[in-house]
């Protein structure tokens, strides 16, 4: 048996002597609090009875940057409570009956934390095309970011369900979509607890409605 020790040691050496490095492919993407994190958190975590300044569930108010930072360890996404609860197996946030955050949303949040969880970094304006406006490429992403944390799933807030196009069309027809996002008198200002949707995005919604609010 002893005679086998040397061949084994030799193979172990050969395997171990391969270069072993720790590299990652960096990204040019800079995640912005105002444009990406705030709308996502407001839409997913501050719905009624949750982490808003009125209900203060568990004492958390995530409508402000400082409030959110109580569950974030800048530079360490894996050690941040925020990351742990949105990826947990059983005690997951947002809780039932709401959907788990998507992989893209989790990546956005983790990347923001990893980049230092900053508030005031210079962000380039994201491309906002008000000429060619379609439901699938322009409107759906706006709704996903600003509205669908509350207005999807089996128990959508205010019984306004954006699970499918038909629900969106209904709020276009009765005027509540545009009234709410423009924050006009007589409508509930939306997104609730959050800042107004950027003007350019509201212009996209207006353009889409004026063209017949098609499912295109």
């Amino acid at each position: 048996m002893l005679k086998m020790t040397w061949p084994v040691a030799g193979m172990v050496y050969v395997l171990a002597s391969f270069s072993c490095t720790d590299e990652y492919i960096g990204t040019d993407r800079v995640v912005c609090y105002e444009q990406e994190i705030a709308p996502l958190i407001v839409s997913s975590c501050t719905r009624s009875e949750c982490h808003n300044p009125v209900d203060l569930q568990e004492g958390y108010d995530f409508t402000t940057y400082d409030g959110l930072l109580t569950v974030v360890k800048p530079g360490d996404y894996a050690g941040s409570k925020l990351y742990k609860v949105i990826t947990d197996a059983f005690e997951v946030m947002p809780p039932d009956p709401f959907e788990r955050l998507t992989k893209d949303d989790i990546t956005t949040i983790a990347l923001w934390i990893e980049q230092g969880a900053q508030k005031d970094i210079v962000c380039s304006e994201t491309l906002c095309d008000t000429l060619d406006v379609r439901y699938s490429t322009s409107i759906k992403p706006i709704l996903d970011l600003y509205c669908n944390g509350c207005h999807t799933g089996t128990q959508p807030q205010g019984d306004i369900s954006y699970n499918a196009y038909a629900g969106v069309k209904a709020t276009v027809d009765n005027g509540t979509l545009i009234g709410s996002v423009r924050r006009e008198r007589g409508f509930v200002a939306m997104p609730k607890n959050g800042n107004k949707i950027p003007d350019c995005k509201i212009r996209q919604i207006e353009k889409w409605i004026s063209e017949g609010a098609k499912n295109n």
Partner: protein
Amino acid sequence: MKLSKNIWSFCMFCILLNPSKAQDLLDALGPETEQNIKVTNAFKSSRVISSHSMEMLPAGALDFRILHRFGRVNQGFEEFFGLDNATMRMSFDYGITKNMTVGVARSTFKKELDAFLKYRILWQSEGAGKMPVSVVWTSGVIRNGLKNNVLPDPEVDITESRRLAYFHQLIIGRKFNEHFTFQINPILVHQNIVESELIPNNLLAFGLGARYKVSKRIAVLVDYYYPLNNFPRDFRSHPISLGVDIETGGHVFQLHFSNSTGMNERALLAEENGNLFSGEVQFGFNLSRIFQIVKNKID
């Protein structure tokens, strides 16, 4: 890479200790002493489903294995429930001694070539000097063989080291009785380059494998990993496989369902696995045929 260096030195230490030597001396004491009987057939083959099992090949035996996995079953009739798309891993494992196996394999997924070394440190046995568990160490290297698109960013140079990943795994298993075998198999997978800063280069996971023998020829198996630090953390896509071993004179035929496409250690833990709860599982079958190349090889 400090961690894996420590593990290597631990492995070397165990090899040099060579516990079977003391056993030989005991055996030499003569017929008065109680016989030491090694426990065999804890698993039907040297793999549970995708993971290494506590079993080893006999000295001089060549194990030709073909692992097949089809596409996702939830694709419906148009894709014939996934059967239109298959990935494969073909491997040749050879038992150099009864306690040491080496193997090479080629997977169609990412054209990966992998090689491993597997060494049995302790062998479960009954009788004199009995040993309650088997302890097996395995380490290997995996090389991505794609010509293009090795990395998602085309501006990053593809060097040889960026194609490589390694794994080290400790297997501690026990055959409790004729029917039931259980093993724990923690694993470390190191990738030299990863797709983003959010993904750790060293992935750790805690694995479990079990077999329950239903009849002489049929056994059910489970092969599961609990990843400790992957991104994003999502219990719905922990790698899990459930299978049935069917022994048909000379070879072992295994049918299984799994939520992972990859069939080597890197692909199993580092690639994105299917979401069990939305039916992202795949059907697969494994075939193993053992040829005794060197007859009655003594070690």
